[in-house]
Structure formats: structure tokens, C-alpha cells
């Protein structure tokens, strides 16, 4: 991978984040890169979220976002088969035309308990939309129902699709993601499959409430699995809109954790520029500063009011609800 060589060559300006022990490399003023677990890939510590990319004004703006991100040193691009009925993948595919090798492309498969053949069909669709012959990372999307691990690991379940895609070279690395409860993530990890990546919500409220930071992150570090952070501001910026923290504090906190990348939704150039302001030349918060922020957030964190993805149905997609026979988002909005 070209990225790896490029960035190893620029380590003259590289730095090691002392407080959280983060191994960061990158040029001064650029977005630092970190190792993606044991994969040998290096990824930017800020990643472009695919859901919000599909919410950009039009394809032109989406392309501009991707271009600007690439030029600033961002190489990690998140996506999912079901984001905006494929538009997020299509736009990312268009935007990466001729630049595919500069990006680490991740997308997710949305079987929600259905079998391997459904997953393989989705993989082909994702590849076509993304205009590529392989993904760098392919993850199982929205592992959020208590019985999802059981369904994923049943004979002919989605886990077999992950193994096959990796064997066929259609996905270099595989993982899973979910936003509901650390215990579901731990259940997935306890089933003996060698995941390369695991994605989860990480923010200053999560630190003290049904905490992925406390329960899942150390387990990933122990196993050398790359942690991918998301929902640094609550999913739709709830914690920021209500004045509990600033966007900058929230993003800095999440990026200061020992994660490979923090995936953030950026549906406009304005949001991208704001995030780049934090990510360029990023220096992790000191341990004491992080602790202070956790303490400040502790009371509001304790009922999950700004982490609605854990405490309500608000962030649970319709496709998963359908498979689990839950009311739709229209019938059960939160």
C-alpha cells in the first residue's frame, strides 16, 4: 500500500502521543496516521463517515468533501450497504475514481441475522457501487440485538461470508460494528473468530455509562484488534446542541483514546473544515484533562440522555428492525 510507505518516510516529523500511548505518524500540519491494529495498514486518526456523505447537498459536494479530506491526509472512508439506499456507496465510488489506492475503504454488510448468501450478494453490490474489486475492511453492520451474535455465528450465518470474502481477496480485513451495548460486543468477541477491526461508540459520556471505553476497548487492545470509534458527539451532535460539551472537546476526547480512527459524519465542507481544525497536527489530550472531562460529563451520562443510540431505538435502522420484527422507525421514532 502506497500510504504506508509514504508515511513511514515522513516520520521525521512524526510524533508519539505520550498521554495515551498512541503511535502516531505523519507530517506536521497534516492529519496524523495510526496503525490499524495488526493489519499493517496505517489510517488517518479522523475518518469520513459514509452515512453523512450520502446526506451531502449533491454529488459535487460529496466529491469535494472526499477530495479535500484526501488532500488533508485523511485516508479512511467508512460506508455501509444500506446507507441512503446505496447512494453513500455510489457517491464515494464516484469521488474515489482514479484515487482508490489512496484510500482505505471500509463498508458494512447488513444481513441482520440473515444468511451468508445474502451477505455475499450485498458484497458484490457494494463493490460495484464503490467501483472497486476489493474492500480494505468489510464489517457486519449494526450488531445491536441481544441475539445477533447467535444469528451471525449460526451455521451458514454472516460470519462465514466474512471468512469467504477474506479468502477470496474481496475484503482484506473484516470486523463488526454496533452502537447498543458493550455486552453484545463482548459476546461477539467471545465466539472465537479472528476479527481485524471492531467499531463502537466512543465519547466522553460513554466513558461512564454502559461503557465501550471501559469494557470493550481494553479487550481489543489485548487482542491487537483495531478499534474504530464513532458517535463522538452522540450520533447527531445531541451533546453539543444541548451545550453539554463543545464539538471540539467531544472530538478531541474521542480521538485521544487508543483507537485507530475516529469516524465522524461530515455532510458539508463546513463540518469537514471544523473537524480538520481539530485533526490537523492532532495532539492527544493529557490524561488529566480527559479525566476532568469525564467527571464533568458524569451526571448527564448516568441516564444516557445524550447517548440515545444506547437507550432508545432512534439509531436502529429499519432493515434490522424488519429482520427482527420490530416496529419501523416511523411507528417507533425513538
Amino acid at each position: 500500500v502506497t500510504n504506508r510507505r509514504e508515511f513511514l518516510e515522513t516520520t521525521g516529523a512524526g510524533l508519539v502521543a505520550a498521554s495515551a500511548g498512541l503511535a502516531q505518524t505523519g507530517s506536521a500540519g497534516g492529519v496524523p496516521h495510526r496503525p490499524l491494529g495488526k493489519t499493517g495498514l496505517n489510517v488517518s486518526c479522523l475518518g469520513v463517515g459514509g452515512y453523512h456523505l450520502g446526506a451531502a447537498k449533491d454529488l459535487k459536494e460529496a466529491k469535494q468533501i472526499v477530495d479535500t479530506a484526501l488532500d488533508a491526509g485523511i485516508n479512511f472512508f467508512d460506508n455501509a450497504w444500506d446507507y441512503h439506499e446505496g447512494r453513500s456507496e455510489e457517491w464515494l465510488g464516484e469521488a474515489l475514481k482514479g484515487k482508490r489506492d489512496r484510500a482505505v475503504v471500509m463498508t458494512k454488510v447488513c444481513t441482520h441475522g440473515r444468511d451468508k448468501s445474502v451477505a455475499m450478494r450485498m458484497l458484490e453490490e457494494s463493490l460495484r457501487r464503490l467501483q472497486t474489486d476489493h474492500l480494505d475492511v468489510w464489517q457486519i453492520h449494526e450488531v445491536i440485538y441481544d441475539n445477533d451474535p447467535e444469528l451471525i455465528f449460526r451455521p451458514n450465518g454472516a460470519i462465514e461470508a466474512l471468512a469467504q470474502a477474506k479468502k477470496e481477496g474481496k475484503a482484506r480485513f473484516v470486523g463488526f460494528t454496533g452502537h447498543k451495548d458493550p455486552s453484545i460486543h463482548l459476546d461477539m468477541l467471545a465466539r472465537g473468530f479472528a476479527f481485524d477491526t471492531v467499531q463502537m461508540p466512543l465519547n466522553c459520556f460513554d466513558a461512564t455509562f454502559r461503557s465501550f471505553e471501559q469494557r470493550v476497548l481494553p479487550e481489543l487492545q489485548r487482542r491487537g484488534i483495531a478499534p474504530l470509534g464513532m458517535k463522538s458527539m452522540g450520533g447527531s451532535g445531541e451533546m453539543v446542541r444541548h451545550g453539554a460539551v463543545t464539538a471540539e472537546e467531544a472530538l478531541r476526547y474521542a480521538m485521544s483514546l487508543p483507537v485507530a480512527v475516529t469516524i465522524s459524519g461530515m455532510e458539508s465542507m463546513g463540518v469537514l473544515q471544523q473537524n480538520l481544525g481539530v485533526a490537523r497536527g492532532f495532539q492527544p489530550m493529557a490524561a488529566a484533562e480527559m479525566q476532568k472531562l469525564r467527571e464533568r460529563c458524569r451526571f448527564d451520562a448516568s441516564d444516557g440522555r445524550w447517548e440515545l443510540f444506547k437507550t432508545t431505538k432512534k439509531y436502529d435502522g429499519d432493515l434490522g428492525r424488519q429482520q427482527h420484527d420490530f416496529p419501523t422507525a416511523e411507528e417507533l421514532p425513538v
Partner: protein
Amino acid sequence: MRAFGRSGPAVSALGFGGHHLGEAEDEQTATRLVGEAIDGGVTFFDNCWEYHRGKSEEWMGKGLQGRRDRVFLMTKVCTHGRDRELGLRMLEQSLRRLGTDHVDLWQIHGVSFDNDPDLFIRPGGAAEALAQAKKQGKTRFVGFSGHKDPSIHLKMLATRFPFDSVQMPLNPFDHHFRSFERQVLPEAARRGMAALGMKSLQGRGDAVKKGAVTAEQALRYAMSLDGVTVTIAGMEKLDVLHQNLKIAQGFQPMTAAEMQKVRDAVKAYAGDGRFELYKTSIKYDNPEARTAHEFPIDLEQAEMKLILGASKNDGTPYPKGGAQ
């Protein structure tokens, strides 16, 4: 009839749910429902300060006129983490609406947020309101209720507050999923507390409508659980009341084998909580609870519509930290 806790009075095994009473066609139907329930042998009456903005308590009060001494009357207080003073103000309102000078049981309503136990037991919290009401004779017994997670109930018990009762969802789906039956019911029995079951049909009977279980099976299952004192059921229509009375009168508990059969039949639908939305969503967390915890409100909720209809439609129905 079953004993309420270790030394309490006998109460009927079927309880009359207050929430659904507020959904009766009109006040006349409501009073008739209450009267027929009493005549049918029901003595346990459930209610709550926030059900239908007071309508449930008012209608029950009307239905109990002249019959108050024939029933064991329970209502609940909706501080949702707020302070003791608010709790005591709500008690006075409840007593006035119910047309009585005391309730038999007063419970903390909707203990469903992870931090509710901490807020309950804090100095100046609702725990002090329960203790004071009991001391003043405004209630004979005290307890709490919630439908979210057994771990929150266990946290309430761990506060060491001397509760007389605990209310929880009990149904065959619950047996397989975040189970109150397996985690809380035995603990209540061990402590000699009265255990009140609710949501035998998972709140709205979705599983019955979809054919996963019959209404009779579900109610009989809940009433057959070892250690349960009362099963509270919503009965907003006379035919539902009659149907439930038929099961309750001369009730014989299911055998262990029968119960297992029901559990097995629902197991495939229990593992993700699809029929127990009170555990997996905030749909059943009333506006009073949501606003106290600053959670988003649901404009489609029956209570919410009432509130919005009765106020200025500004979406902030309750002054922070207080009741009208």
C-alpha cells in the same frame, strides 16, 4: 386471594390496572368496570399519578365511592429522580383524585433509567417521601415499579430502603430475555416482599395479535409464577374484564410442565425483545419520566397528546422540577 408480603392483608391474585381504566369509553364505563371488578372478587387496584394526566385516578376514585374499604388501593408517584417535596405534593393530588385519605400502597413509578436508584436514595430524594408518607399513615405500604431492566431493580433493592413491594413485567417472553422472573422474583421472595406482576401481555398484546401466544396462556402463565402476589392487568372494556375474571375466578396455577411448554413456544421470538418494547425502547417511558431525564418526547404518545391538547402546544408541558 394471596397474602401481600410476609404479614400483609390478603389481596386478589388478579389486579385491576389503572392505565387502561383511563382508556375506557367514558366515565360511566369506567365506574362500571370498577364496580363489576369488585363484585367479581378483584380487590387489588393499581394506579399512578401520571396516567392520562389524572383521569385514571379520578375515574377510579368515582368508581370506588362507597366501596373504598373493600379494596387494596395502590398508586404511584412520578418524581423520576426529582425531590421529596414534589413526591409529597403528588401524593396529596393522588389522594384528592382518588377520593380517599390514604392509599394502601404507594410506589415509585417508572424506575427505568440507570441512575434512578441513585437519584431515589440521595438526601432529599423520593425515598424520604415514601418514609414520611408511611409514618403519617397516608400509605400503609411502600414499593417501586419499573419495566426496563432487572439490573435497575436489583440496584433499587441494594439501596437497602425497606420496600414492602416491587412491581415488574412478568410473562413467558421475559423468562428468556433480561429476565425479571429469573433475577428479581426470587430476590423479592427471599426478602419477604410482595411481588406485583404486570405486562403479562407485554403491554399492548402485540404477541397475542401476532399469534405467538394466546391471551389466556399469557395471563395464566404470569399468575402461575412462584412468588407472585398479584398480576395487574389492563381492562379498558367490559369484555376484557369478563375474560380475565373467568380465568381468575377459581384459578388453578399451571403445572411446571405446562409453563415450560409456553416458555418453549415463545422462545424463538424472545431473544431480541421484539415483543417487550418496554425493555428495548423508550416507548413505554411516560412523558413525565422523559422530561425529568431530558429525553426526547414522543408526540404520538397518548399522554403527550393529552398534554399538548391541554396546554399551549409548546412541547414543554412540565416546569422543570415541579408539578402543577
